């Protein structure tokens, strides 16, 4: 293209023609430029429109994806067992007070009038109004009850202000932990039609008066806020609508940039286009951040109502609603428990706005502004009280739910954890570990595990995995896999006694030096704990006194794989090595494994794998899954009775005889000690409860403690406290059918009589009683008198 000349020339007709031509050309050129410009502009506009449309489309997808799916990650909550109340139940005043404290009940001096209140009369009569609660098997409505406790037993249970007896009542369970999403957000969802009108009115009066008129953004509010801010010389008002606030909370980061503001406005518009005002309002009411409880963030008005007033939203007074609405502006600045005066002023501001909107009369305003904030005690619902137990709950849940679901689906997990037993277990651990360390110079840096389960159902009731029970770290109950020492012995003797034609409690075992060639051509010579040999011992004596050498002999005679099979039948799932020293427990199990094994002894041969979860509900309270009681009769009850008979004798005359004068109820159990006193064990039980204790050091060094001088001490302390509260049922000594008690000679194992010297009475499986008579030397008169009284 030629450039137009700058200098004008004289015009001649030819020139004129030429000029015309040039002008025409110039016109064409400028037209072409215009055309090209228009065309580029057109494409540009199309491109920009396409980009904007795509971006809006993207934002729209972002909004609808979140709104149509699970908007929030709801934490799962773990509940303890509900306390069952019925006449005759062992329950102390102290225990009931503790339970009500953990349930955040409020003690009042007058008659209780609201759910969650109680009073005590004469330190033994309780009147309380329970709260509504959804159990796995249905809803239980709030109810007034009164009960009396006499001599550590619930002696009467009635309806409140009535003589009508209640045969059985479940208190709602204590919430013991939350399994939180990464954001640590806690909320309770509420539907809009359940939200009081006054709260909605107050919220709109304060945060967004033209909520029902605007389309997500409100220019009038923005201008009004700008003017107000200019007048005040700072930010005193925000122009954001509720929709914008919701968009900011749900989709955007808190940074203050122009881009975020533009996104906020666009998304607010899109949200309004896609969703009804009621959906937006309901989502806002559930989303808004209203406080902090430790690490947990309090979101939504319903949870905030519970957190600040211990009441559901619909039960709040209007001044309390006004406070919650006032907190939206700054939950930390107006935190009512820390900054009471600020909170009162803010509440009163909101009340005034409610007056302006006609929601209050002047008289009501005067009345409400004069009121105290009416805050409840700070609840403890969010703290994880029992870290080791919650770890077990999570592990057992993981077989059915993935981690993400646990943290975000709002599951309600009902467990068998008993807070009363747990607190006793924790107290015993602290007390005894300190005592052991101060009494034994070699015992230092001790660590421990204590597991308590119900004997018959295998439900975990308590578990401590650290000498500092609140410490959340290595879970020794589940992960400390240590040699079990003599805890193996009952399994070996059980293997023998399942062959009654061959072995009885009166069978003779050799207690003489033994040398075994192991597979590595190394000689192994097992020793007894006292480094002595007693010649011959009867089978029951070998177990009672925990003799090593006769046990190894018996084990080798039975076959190591048969012992391994018995262990599996008892509930041990780990692989058991089959080398000779396994007969002395030279293989490792966790305390939880040991508890599984001894549960089968405690339940007379029925193996019930230990569990902690009973039921799971979804966030709406609908049943999802139940973990039912399943039994497996693994061992003949007659054989197990014979072993249990000896396990009881151990607590009377054997290695755990210190128990005989410390507990009045009969118990059964076995001590365990490993080489160089590295591990100290005791596993013991009654008909109702089983407990396993391990004491050792994390570096596997010597503790200086045997099973009897270490673990048994902790076990005894714990059971003594159970007994004090009356919550200990004796170990049953009643034999099953097919068992005969026979007097035998304590040395030879031959038939004897009660009057004979050295005679002992032992149970035998029918048909396996000894037939040969032993010589009878008459017992002295004192011995006979003793036997008479026994």
């Amino acid at each position, binding site marked *: 293209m030629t450039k137009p000349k700058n200098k004008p020339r004289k015009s001649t007709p030819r020139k004129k023609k030429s000029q015309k031509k040039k002008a025409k050309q110039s016109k064409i050129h400028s037209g072409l430029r215009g055309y090209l410009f228009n065309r580029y502009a057109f494409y540009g506009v199309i491109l920009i429109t396409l980009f904007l449309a795509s971006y809006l489309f993207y934002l729209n997808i972002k909004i609808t994806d979140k709104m149509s799916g699970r908007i929030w990650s709801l934490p799962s909550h773990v509940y303890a067992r509900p306390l069952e109340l019925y006449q005759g139940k062992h329950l102390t005043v102290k225990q009931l007070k503790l339970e009500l404290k953990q349930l955040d009940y409020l003690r009042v001096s007058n008659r209780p009038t609201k759910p969650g209140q109680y009073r005590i009369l004469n330190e033994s009569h309780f009147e309380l109004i329970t709260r509504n609660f959804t159990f796995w*098997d249905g809803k239980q409505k709030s109810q007034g009850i009164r009960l009396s406790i006499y001599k550590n037993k619930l002696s009467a249970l009635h309806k409140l202000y009535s003589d009508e007896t209640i*045969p059985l009542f479940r208190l709602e369970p204590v919430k013991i932990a939350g399994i939180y999403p990464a954001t640590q957000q806690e909320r309770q969802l509420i539907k809009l039609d359940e939200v009081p009108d006054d709260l909605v009115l107050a919220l709109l009066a304060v945060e967004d008066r033209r909520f029902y008129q605007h389309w997500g953004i409100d220019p009038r509010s923005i201008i009004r806020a700008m003017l107000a801010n200019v007048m005040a010389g700072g930010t005193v008002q925000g122009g954001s609508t509720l929709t914008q606030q919701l968009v900011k909370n749900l989709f955007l980061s808190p940074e203050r940039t122009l881009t975020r503001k533009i996104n906020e406005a666009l998304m607010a518009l899109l949200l309004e286009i896609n969703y009804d005002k009621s959906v937006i309002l309901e989502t806002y009411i559930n989303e808004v951040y209203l406080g902090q409880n430790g690490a947990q963030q309090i979101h939504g008005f319903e949870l905030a109502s519970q957190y600040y007033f211990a009441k559901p939203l619909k039960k709040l007074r209007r001044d309390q609603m006004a406070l919650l609405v006032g907190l939206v502006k700054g939950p930390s600045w107006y935190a009512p428990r820390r900054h009471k005066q600020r909170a009162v002023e803010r509440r009163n501001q909101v009340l005034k706005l409610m007056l302006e909107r006609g929601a209050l009369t002047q008289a009501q305003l005067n009345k409400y502004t004069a009121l105290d904030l009416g805050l409840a005690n700070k609840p403890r619902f969010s703290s994880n009280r029992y870290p080791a137990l919650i770890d077990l709950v999570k592990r057992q849940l993981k077989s059915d739910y993935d981690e993400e679901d646990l943290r975000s689906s709002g599951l309600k997990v009902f467990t068998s954890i008993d807070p009363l037993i747990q607190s006793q277990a924790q107290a015993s651990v602290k007390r005894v570990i300190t005592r052991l360390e101060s009494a034994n110079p070699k015992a230092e840096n001790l660590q421990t595990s204590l597991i308590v389960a119900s004997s018959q*159902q295998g439900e975990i009731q308590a578990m401590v995995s650290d000498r500092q029970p609140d410490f959340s770290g290595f879970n020794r109950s589940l992960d400390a896999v240590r040699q079990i020492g003599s805890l193996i012995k009952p399994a070996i003797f059980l293997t023998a006694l399942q062959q009654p034609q061959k072995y009885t409690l009166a069978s003779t075992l050799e207690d003489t030096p033994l040398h075994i060639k192991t597979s590595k051509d190394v000689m192994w010579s097992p020793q007894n704990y006292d480094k002595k040999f007693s010649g011959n011992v009867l089978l029951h004596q070998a177990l009672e006194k925990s003799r090593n050498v006769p046990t190894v002999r018996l084990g080798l005679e039975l076959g190591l794989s048969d012992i391994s099979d018995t262990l599996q039948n008892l509930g041990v799932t780990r692989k058991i090595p089959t080398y000779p020293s396994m007969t002395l427990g030279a293989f490792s199990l966790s305390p939880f494994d040991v508890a599984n094994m001894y549960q089968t002894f405690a339940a007379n041969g029925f193996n019930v794998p230990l569990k902690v979860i009973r039921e799971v509900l979804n966030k709406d309270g609908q049943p999802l899954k139940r973990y*039912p*009681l399943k*039994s497996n009769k693994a061992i003949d009850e007659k054989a197990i009775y014979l072993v249990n008979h000896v396990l009881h004798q151990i607590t009377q005359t054997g290695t755990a005889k210190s128990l005989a004068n410390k507990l009045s109820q009969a118990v059964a159990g076995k001590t365990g000690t490993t080489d160089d006193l590295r591990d100290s064990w005791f596993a013991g039980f009654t008909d109702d409860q089983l407990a396993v204790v391990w004491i050792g050091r994390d570096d596997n060094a010597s503790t200086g403690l045997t099973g009897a001088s270490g673990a048994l001490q902790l076990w005894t302390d714990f059971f003594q406290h159970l007994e004090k509260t009356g919550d200990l049922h004796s170990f049953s000594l009643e034999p099953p059918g097919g068992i005969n008690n026979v007097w035998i000679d304590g040395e030879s194992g031959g038939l004897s009589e009660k009057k004979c010297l050295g005679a002992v009475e032992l149970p035998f499986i029918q048909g396996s009683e000894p037939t040969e008579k032993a010589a009878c030397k008459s017992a002295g008169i004192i011995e006979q008198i003793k036997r008479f009284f026994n």
Partner: protein
Amino acid sequence: MQVSRNHRTDKTFFQLGLIYKIAALLVLLLWLGGCTQTRPGEADPANRVLPVEDSYDLPDVIKTLINQSDEQYLNQNLAGSLATLERAIRINPRHGEVWSRMAQVYLKLGNLEQAKQHAKRSNSVLKNNPQLKAFNDRIIATGSVESVH
């Protein structure tokens, strides 16, 4: 004429058929009506629930839970029935009546293995109750409760 007669014969036959059909329908309706009149559980032996006899030395709290469980059982809420029986076992595991009922619920659920296991558990704690022992033994031996009713 013949055609007409034949036609008449056909019509008579058809009418007779209709009467039979109506009669059969009536019989069916009566039978169904009879079924709904029958108390639940009577038609199917597995639906029956052993009564909690006064002679059983059961505390009120256990009786309350057994009755609640029976009601759930009859309403076909078998999971609920099991859960209620487990509550009773937590309170006191030494009542064979409760374990036996668990066996019965498992039987109804078609879980023969657990039915037998719980019948065995019932026997292991039963005292002087030959009727219940016979009931349990029947479950253990045959996986059925039919002949004990």
